[in-house]
């Protein structure tokens, strides 16, 4: 798997999304829950659109981390 593309502007939020790409299987579950943060593109790779998403996305991001079948997502504060 390739590293996340560092697009998206950091907005000074304390939350940081980290994906372990050795575990990630690109099954896009996270994208279904938080499409503003996770995107699986046509090349079948997962891209993290915002590594430091704004606070209002916390619930979605946490839910995505919880539901990721590979437990590949961690949310750091």
């Amino acid at each position, binding site marked *: 798997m390739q590293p996340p593309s560092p697009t998206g502007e950091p907005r000074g939020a304390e939350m940081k999304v980290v994906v372990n790409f050795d575990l990630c299987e690109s*099954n*896009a579950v996270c994208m*279904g829950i938080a499409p503003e943060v996770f995107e*699986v593109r*046509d090349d079948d790779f997962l891209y993290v659109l915002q590594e430091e998403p704004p606070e209002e996305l916390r619930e979605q991001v946490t839910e995505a981390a919880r539901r990721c*079948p590979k437990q590949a997502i961690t949310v750091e504060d």
Partner: protein
Amino acid sequence: MVDPVVVVGASLGGLSAVDALRAGGHDGDVVVLEAADELPSDRPPLSKQVLAGTMEPAAARQPLAARLEELRADVRLGFRVESFDVATRRIRGADGTELQASGVVVATGAAPRRLPGPELAGVHVVRTMDDCLALKADLDRGPDRVVVVGAGFIGAEVAATCRELGLEVTLLEGAPAPMVRVLPVEVGSFVADLHRSHGVDVRLGVGVDGLEADGDRVSGVRLADGTLVPAQVVVVGIGVVPSTDWLTDSGVPLGNGVTCDETCLAAPGVVAAGDVAEWLNPHFGERMRVEQWEHAIEQGAAAGRRLLAGDGPGEPFASVPWFWSDQYDRKLQMAGRPSATDEVHVLEGSFAEQRFAVAFRRGDRCTGVLGVNRPRHVVQARMRLVESLDWAPIEELFS
């Protein structure tokens, strides 16, 4: 003292119910009873990475295994529940221990069907880590041929893994194509072709008459047409049976597993989730029992919440199930619940490319979307299906 909530089965469904109980503010005791001597592993890697040797057994952990302590559950391993009585809510273990429960979560999953006849070395099913490691040990001995009986998802994955290990594989399916009881024939034919393109000897529409043995070890599979397929390893993947033997005289309604209403309630104070549970899915207006990883977690959570609702009506558990299956370098994913007789519409790509998304249609409804190496399409379609099962928005999504 208030009696504990008792959860039977410490796999995805059971632990997820505990998580929901705690998240919902349940502060009382929770006891989890599990027949296995160890906390069950995560099961999907057992037919894939662990069998292939690319994942350490210890890494195949259920998501909630890391948070067990936080769940404050009294997990009792090696505790097989033998009987239950719904009127008194008393649970009895195989060793005679009795427990009084205030509420019960049935999460005993399902157990693989086996072929009739005496037990033979070299014959395997794959459900637990022990099953997987026993099969792996036999594969490591370098058999001339592995026969997989049954081309359901687990059989197909095991066949793919064996092939990738460089072994000769015969995949037997009694039906005219894999998975035709649950999916339109086009999908099963694709799976058969995929395996053939990887050098698997796929035989469809053939019944198994029995196993041949050399002493106490299997030496081949006898087909209904009289052919003998010599094999030192046989993997049986002919489906599972919901584990409800302990509920036979309990008063809990049984049919295709535990029969629940749309809130996952089976009887007052008794909920069920995961492979063992059949419920009325209000989103489809159909009764279904779903044997899928994510579903077990979601339904476990719903069952936990239902228990917390007590005598209230509870929330219906509406769901668009989703699952994945990895075979070779192909990732198959499906959202929804199609039936064998639904129309198949190719939305993206083609079967020939082995990369596509198809939608299943019944009247004005889209009953599901299946993708091969199209995870994005499946997930986007699922989001729409969660809103409604109307056909038009799905067709629009891909046009």
